[in-house]
Structure formats: structure tokens, C-alpha cells
């Protein structure tokens, strides 16, 4: 294992060009991975020497958030809290306070997918059989499947996607921009769209569209210190006289899932609510690889949607 702490952006990009480069920010995901032998012989690239990556700036076109901003800083950021309360609401449900104080937003977005067959020691994996994601040739959760079903478990991404955040990715080859939805792919082994040498340079949050409101629900066994067994963000905004509604799901697939509904009136009809629930449940493919099984997690989609729409006043009180 080796370590470097670049102080210039260009040096950082050179370090990241190393095939085994791994960014070390808060370390709340990477260090356990190292201890479990899931990451071997890395070049640890610290972001400590680059204060520019820790900035939050409001620019005319968007709010720019540096990847090394800690989760707690974002939670405590007053202007952001006013524009996008859902972000603080979501991030404050990540880990425990100690994790949020060191964990960064970039780290959360790049959190490795999780699975009860993967996040284990080398001894454990050797005893029960290695899996596709590390050292084996089958997915232990779905042996007939050709791909890995480890789960996207970053709450932050779910909320940011609902806020239509975009990412600026940077490498020596140049800069490019992707939406958060596109950033994730349905393959637990290779779930983020980062090319070799590339890293999240900035997170761009557009200024809130008219009538925007959003909320986040997290399915978990405990009230703290748990990854999402299901994460659901609901966001709505006005598109002229019509309402648009977006449901973003995490914790039930290797990527983010999204269901969008357009041309809605002020209130949803019961049929529309049912249709939203059905669409989300149809997309979600929770597997037997987290603390609570697929059935509960799938049922919770319906429950969260019903609660969320109620909270957001999108269901008429006297509706049948």
C-alpha cells in the first residue's frame, strides 16, 4: 500500500492515473474495505492538500459543491438547507455523527455497492465461497445471474438525483458532465461511470425549479448507523401549469432507479398513486443480501410513497 497527498490539481490527476489509485477522503468506506482485503495494494490518494475541493459556491447557473465537503458541513450549510431541505434531511440519516463528520459527499456518491456476501473478511469469503465481485465466478445471491447484485447504498445520491444534480468529472483527458442518474449502472461490480483516472470534481445543484419540494425516506433496522435497505426520494415541481413528479429509489438495485410522472394536476388521483407504486415496485429488484429480505423492502416502497405524497400534500384529504 502506498500513499500520496497532492497539493495541486494537476498532481492529483497524475496520481489518479495510477491504475491502483484510490481516493482517500473520510475513509469510512475505504478503510473497512482495506481491512477486509477487498481492496489490495492501493495507491491511496489523499484530498487533504486540496482545499478547493472542500468549497461550496453559489454560482449563477448552479450551486457548486466540492467532493471533499463533509456530510456534516452540507447538513449545517444554511443557504443549502433553505433551498433544498431534502439534502440535509437525507444526509443526516447517513451513518452516525462520527461518520458524517469525516465522510464526504464525493465519498458517499462513490460508495461501493454492498452485499452480505461481499462486505466480509477474506476468511469469511474463503469459507463460504468467493463471489463475482471479488475473487469468485458466481453471484452468490443470484447464482444463475451473469452480473453482480450488490446494492447501491448511498443515501446522498438518491436525494441529489431527486434534486437533478449533475456531476463534473475530471481527468487528465479532460472534463465532462453527467447527470447523477446516468452516473450509476446496473452492475454491482462496476456501478459508477468513472473512467480511468477520473474523479468527481464538482457536484452541480441547479437552483430549485418553481414549486420544487422533495422528501426522503430511509428503510432501515435502526434509527442510526445503518445503510439504507431502501431509500426513496420523492420530488415535485411545476412545469408551467402541470405538475411533474419524480421518484428516485436506491438500496434495491446496483444503480439508482427513477420513475417520473408528468402532466399531473395539483393532486394525484388514487389510481395515479397506485400506478406510481406499481411502477416503482416493478423496477426495484431487492435481493436476499441485506438485513431485511426483499419482501419487506418491496412493501416499504408502497408505504413510503403513500406517506410521502401525503406529507407533500399531493393527495386530497377528502379523496376516497
Amino acid at each position: 500500500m502506498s500513499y500520496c497527498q497532492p497539493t495541486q490539481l494537476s498532481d492529483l490527476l497524475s496520481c489518479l492515473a495510477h491504475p491502483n489509485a484510490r481516493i482517500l477522503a473520510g475513509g469510512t468506506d475505504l478503510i473497512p474495505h482495506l481491512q477486509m482485503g477487498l481492496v489490495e495494494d492501493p495507491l491511496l490518494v489523499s484530498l487533504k492538500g486540496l482545499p478547493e475541493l472542500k468549497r461550496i459556491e453559489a454560482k449563477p447557473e448552479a450551486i457548486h459543491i466540492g467532493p471533499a465537503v463533509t456530510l456534516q458541513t452540507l447538513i449545517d450549510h444554511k443557504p443549502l438547507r433553505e433551498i433544498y431541505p431534502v439534502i440535509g434531511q437525507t444526509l443526516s440519516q447517513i451513518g452516525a455523527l462520527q461518520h458524517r463528520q469525516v465522510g464526504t459527499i464525493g465519498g458517499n456518491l462513490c460508495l461501493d455497492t454492498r452485499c452480505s456476501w461481499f462486505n466480509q473478511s477474506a476468511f469469511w469469503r474463503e469459507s463460504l465461497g468467493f463471489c463475482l465481485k471479488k475473487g469468485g465466478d458466481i453471484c452468490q445471491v443470484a447464482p444463475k445471474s451473469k452480473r453482480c447484485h450488490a446494492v447501491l447504498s448511498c443515501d446522498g445520491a438518491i436525494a441529489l438525483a431527486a434534486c437533478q444534480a449533475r456531476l463534473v468529472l475530471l481527468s487528465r483527458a479532460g472534463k465532462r458532465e453527467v447527470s447523477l442518474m446516468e452516473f450509476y449502472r446496473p452492475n454491482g461490480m462496476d456501478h459508477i461511470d468513472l473512467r480511468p483516472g477520473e474523479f468527481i470534481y464538482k457536484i452541480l445543484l441547479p437552483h430549485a425549479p418553481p414549486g420544487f419540494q422533495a422528501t426522503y425516506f430511509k428503510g432501515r433496522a435502526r434509527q442510526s448507523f445503518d445503510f439504507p435497505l431502501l431509500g426513496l426520494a420523492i420530488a415535485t415541481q411545476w412545469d408551467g401549469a402541470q405538475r411533474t413528479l419524480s421518484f428516485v429509489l436506491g438500496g434495491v438495485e446496483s444503480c439508482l432507479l427513477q420513475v417520473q410522472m408528468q402532466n399531473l394536476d395539483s393532486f394525484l388521483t388514487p389510481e395515479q398513486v397506485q400506478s406510481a407504486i406499481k411502477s416503482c415496485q416493478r423496477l426495484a429488484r431487492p435481493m436476499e443480501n441485506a438485513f431485511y429480505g426483499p419482501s419487506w423492502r418491496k412493501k416499504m416502497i408502497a408505504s413510503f410513497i403513500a406517506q410521502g405524497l401525503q406529507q407533500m400534500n399531493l393527495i386530497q384529504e377528502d379523496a376516497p
Partner: protein
Amino acid sequence: MVKPPDDPRTLHYLNERIIPRNQDCHSDKTAFSVVGKTYPKPDAYEKVTGKARYTADLKRPRCLVGKLLRSTHAHARLVRVDVSKALQIPGVFACVSGSDFGELIGIIPWTKDEPVLAKDVVRYIGEPIAAVAATSESVAQQALACIDVHYEPFTAHFSPEQAMVPDAVLIHSQAPGNASKSVDWEFGEVDSAFARSQVEVSGNFHFEATTHAALETHAVLAEMGADGRLCVWSSTQTPYYLHRELATVLGMPAHQIRVIRPHIGGGFGGKSEPFGHEICAAYLAKQTGRPVKFVFSREETFLTHRGRHAMDMDLRIGYLPDEGLVMDYQALLDGGAYSSYGMITTYYAGTLNAGLYRVPHYRWKSQRVFTNKPPAGPKRGHGTVQPRFAIECLVDQLCEKLGRDPIAFRRELALGPNTETVNGLRIGSSGFVTCLEKSADQSGWYQKFRKMPFGHGIGIAGSWYLSGTNYPINPESNPQSNVQIKADRSGLITLFCGAADIGQGSDAMLRHLLAEELGVDPNRCKVESQDSDICPVDLGSYSSRVTLMAGNAAISAARHLKNQILQVIAQDWHSSTKQLMIADDRVFHLDRPEQSMSFVTALNRAESVLGALGSTGSYNSPNRGGLYRGALVGPSPAYSFTVHIAELEVDLNSGQIKMKRIVAAHDCGRAIHPQLVEGQIEGSVYMGMGEALLERYETAKGLISQPNLLEYKMPTILDVGTIESIIVESPDPDGPYGAKEAGEGPLHAAIPAIANAIYDAIGLRLYQTPFEPGQILKALESGHCYKPGLPRELS
């Protein structure tokens, strides 16, 4: 001259560090000066400032790192374990395997079936096969990777049902049918009693395996002295049993071995027997001539396990209005690969069921079965937590059927003080009825039970537990606890006792009793309990035995010392010892108020006459209990009693339980140190709540699925609601100043109280722990949930 008070016994120490006690829990509290008051624990400052050193913190010069190679197979023949390549690695000083050890180990003398390191056969994934001692962790890891192990897999059994199939492969050749232990008893006339019972209820219950998850993982350090003596520091609840086992396995005279128990970060039963890694550390230290230290990872501690047995229970209870209950009970225990305490667990799985309530007719069959999983063993409430869950749930059902209030019904059924169960357990004091009343008052039971809206529930359960066992694990006639006291002319009184303070505060308890009995300030008393070279034997911290046994020994020793001092002073004052007393650090003459002397002066005077001042005290429990085979497990000098009332809300959207509050009333006989008693109650309630709602030692192919504190879900502070402790005191004639246990008994009732509260909330009976939201949500969706006590159409 100091003016004596009218009654020196009413003196209270003017110590600003005394935390005032706000609970009025004994009527005659002016009779005590120290007992009943909370002082900071002697180790409190060390612990909160981070100065306390645990085994993993200890450093010795030239220390080697010890590591274990563990089996990756659940059941296999070990064809070959070749350590020769590992030995060639620079920095590797020694490497041993099963063939280096002849003796099998095990805490119960009749069931020693566990090798120090697996020999010939491995019986669970994670079983230690070989041990290395090397200069660093990485060299040790490298060495482990070079050990050549060849396995020939056998069929593995992951459930008792699999293991009990006729002709199933045997896990131990001496255990036909893979039976570890069976018990089959009947007391009274069960069948005829059922025939005449007014109402009966029954159910099939499953209690999931759980583990201790003490904050401190296992750790041991061993070193051979230049004088040929072996010193072992270990995170253990039972240093004396470790001492014995080391002598036996290593073939060393016991007097050449010194066991030191440093500060312990919790045990809960998981550190109460000698382990292979402790023997390995000593053996490797002997072989290499250098200190060797093993520190387990969290995963290794999970693999070592000895946690609560998963138990399947069939229980049927009938109610006979004039007699009490009739009970027919069967339990199947998933024992894991070795016996550990399992023989005792199998008895505990039934023996305490015949008490708490009047149960004149009781039939019981329990069977422990070997499986290819980490060995189950004792966890807080050893073997009795699982059946108490089943019993209290069914008693709630009985109340429902009979239309009786659960508190009134339990009061009517309660087996009172000075009674005996049908299986020969003699109860001295009992504060159970007081526990029922106080918890009902504090929780607002009568305003809430069956009266809250759908989704909100309150439930009650009771339990009882032993304060040590009359018959110790090793049948020996020596005392179960010994104490020595040294009184120094400086005024320092030091009490030596091998009782293991594992964080529960037994040192504080002993100091309290010493100060109380001598009539001195606790701050001039000190307890030494860590070192076997200087502390006389106490059997260890298990079975909730320390307060009662070491406490009685301490009082006895303190009384001897006091008599020595008073005899000298009485002679000086031309008086009798009966006319003298020590209180508030002074010796007083009860009839001559003007005559008094400071304790230190008296101590010096006594030393000048008698020479070195010291005393000893011992405790051996009374020989009580039935006369049948197996009657020796269960009898205790005194029993504690507990009532829990749980209040909660079922989240109708998720099926998850939101704990609001648990009111826990515990009868500990006498609260010697009330804050420590409250700490034990709170910790027990918390642990019970975790087992009720979240924790499961779940195995996939014999290996725990969640060997870390992220996925083994213990509740966080946000999940537990409030815990309100009520100390109830019913002084027991057998306890020190009447004290009984407080460390385990307050756990049991949490689980059934929560189950019964869920029933009160949504009309759903739960038969399996933990109470998972999936099953609750499914029931809610099925439309069968309702508010008990209300007509269904209204709820």
C-alpha cells in the same frame, strides 16, 4: 475530643463525591452508613480518562504476535496440518497445531470435548487449527497462509433437526444421535392436572441465537518469567478456571502459574470458560521464551461465540384455580459444535420454569444437540431467557382467556417468600408482588392496558433468577469464595479477592461491604482482585454469584478484623467488645459518649498489641435442593425477581416497533450500591430489547452472516426509548445484608413484555424472536390485526 452523635449509626459521610440517592427503596436505610449509597466506582476515573489498561493495551518487551489459523470447513477430517513451511519464515518463532496438545478442554468436568487446536476433525467454520507466534502481525498472517491444511469434508449439520436424523454423520463419536445432553423429568401429575384444568393454552416458540457482543474482544498475553513461572493476562470472567485448565493442559504445577485479569470490557457470559487461544498463548510463550499476545478481531470474537442457544420450545400451560399452573414443556437446543456449558444450559432450559408462579405439576424434556456451528454457551440469563419468553407470552394468553388482569393474575399465582418449587428450589425472600405493584403504578398500567388506540400497546412480564448456584461447576469442597483483608498502620484497608470485576462493579460492591462492616470511609478501603498470586480464589463472575458469595465472604472477613481491633480497644477501655462500635471512621463506646478514638489510632494500637493485622473470610453455599438426578442445577442461596412493563407503538406503515419505555422493577434483596444496580437493570433491559427486536446470530452454512457490529444489529440509543429502573428490596437471609443478584435477572422479562405489548397494540401474538417488521407488516396487511379488548369492528 470529638463529640459523638447520639447514635453513631446515623452518621453519613460528608463526602462531596457522594451522589445523593433519590430512590426510597429500603425502609430502614438509616441502619446503614455506606450500603445504599452511591459512590463513584473505584475504577471510574481510570476508565473515563482512558488510563485503564485492558489486555489488548498491555505491552511487554520482545512480545510476539499470536494468530490462529481457523477452519474454513464446517465439518471435515483434517488429513494433514503441516506447519513446516510457516516455521521457515523469518520472524516466525513457533507454530503449533492440534497434535501438540494431548488434553481436551471444557468448563464442565464431565464434558471436556474441545481440543485446544482441532485435531483429526474440524467441527465448525472458524475452529482454530494452528497457532503461530511471530514478530509482527503481517509476518504472523504470512505464516498462517503457509500452513498446509488438507481437509476431507464430511456432511455438516446446520440445525438440530438435520443432526438428529437417524444415521446422521456423528459430530462427536461418543455422542450417538449427535445428542449433547437430554433431560426428561416429571413432577406432580401432569396429565390428570391438564384433564381438570379450567383453561389451557399452548404454543410452539422459537428463540433465535444471539451473542454477547461485549465491547472488548477476547485478548490474552502470556509470558514465562526467568524463575520459570508462567504469567497469563487474559480478558476472562473466570480467572480461576483458566488457572486450573492451564495447569492441567500444560502439565505445570498450579503454583507456578499466575493469572492476571486486567480491566475487562464486558463479558455477559462470553468469557466464562477457558479457551484454546489462552492455552496457545501460554504454550507458545513457554516454547519461545518470549511474551506472546493474541488479540481477537470482532469477527474472531463472533466465531468464538458461546452465545445464547437457539431454542425451539413446545409449551402447554393449564390453569387450575385452586392449585396454580400445570406445565408441559419441551425444548430443543442448538448447541453448536462443542459442549461448553451446554450440559448446564440444558438443565436451565427447564429448571426455573417451575418457579415464579405456583406450578405443582410440571413435565419437562429438553435436549441439546450438536451442530456444525460455533459452540453456544452461557449468555446473561443462561438458558432461562428463552423459556421465560414462552411462559410469559402464554400466561398473557391465559389472562386473556380467563378475562383476568395480567397483574392481578400474576399476583394470585406468585410463589411467595419461604416457599419451594415442585422441583425442589427453595425461595427465601421474594419481592415479586412489590415489583408488580410498583411497575404498574409507575407505568400507568391501569390507565393504559387495553385502553390505548390501535397500534399503541403496553405489556407485562415477570421473571426470576438465581444468585449463584449452590453447587459449583467443579465438585470440590473448598469454599466458593475467599477473601483476605490486610489492615495497614497507614489506615489503608485492602481487601484481596479473586472475584472478577468485568465492568459490573464487583470491586465497588466489595469495597462498600468492607467499609460498611468496619464502619469506615470507603475511600480508605481498597480492593485487589486482578492477580491470582495475591488474591485468594473466587470461582468467577458467572451465574450472578459474586455479590452474594464474595459479598458474604467479605463481610465475614471484615467482621473478624473488626473483632480483633475492638478486642484490643475493649481491653484498653476496660470494657467489652459488645459495648464498642466503629462508625464514621471512629471507635465509640456506646455507653460512654465522651470516649472515642479515631479508627487509625485504634488500628495502630491493635497492631502494636497483636502484630500484623489481617483476616480471612470464606463462603460456601448451603446444601439445598432436591434429591433426584440433575437436582443440583437450579438451587441457589437466593433468587431475584423482576417485572417489566413495556410500552411501545407499532408503526402501521412499516411493521417496525418504536419502543417508548420499559419500566423495570427488580428485587435485588438489598441495593448495596444503587447506581450499579440501576446500571445492571438498564443494561439488562437494553440487551433484552435487542434480542426481542433486532439481534440474531444467523448462520449461513454454519458461518455467522453478520460478524461485525454494523450488521449484527444491536439497538442504538435512538432505538430504546426510555428505561426506568425501580429497585425493590426484599432482604434475603442468605445474602450479604440481604443482597441478591442484579446482573442477569433484569433481562428476561423484556422480551415477553414487548411481545405482550405488541399483542395489546395490534392483537398479534408472536412466537419467534426477533420480532421482525416483515412478519408484523404481513399480519397488518392481512387485516387480522385488531385492538384487543375492543369489539373487532370498532378497532
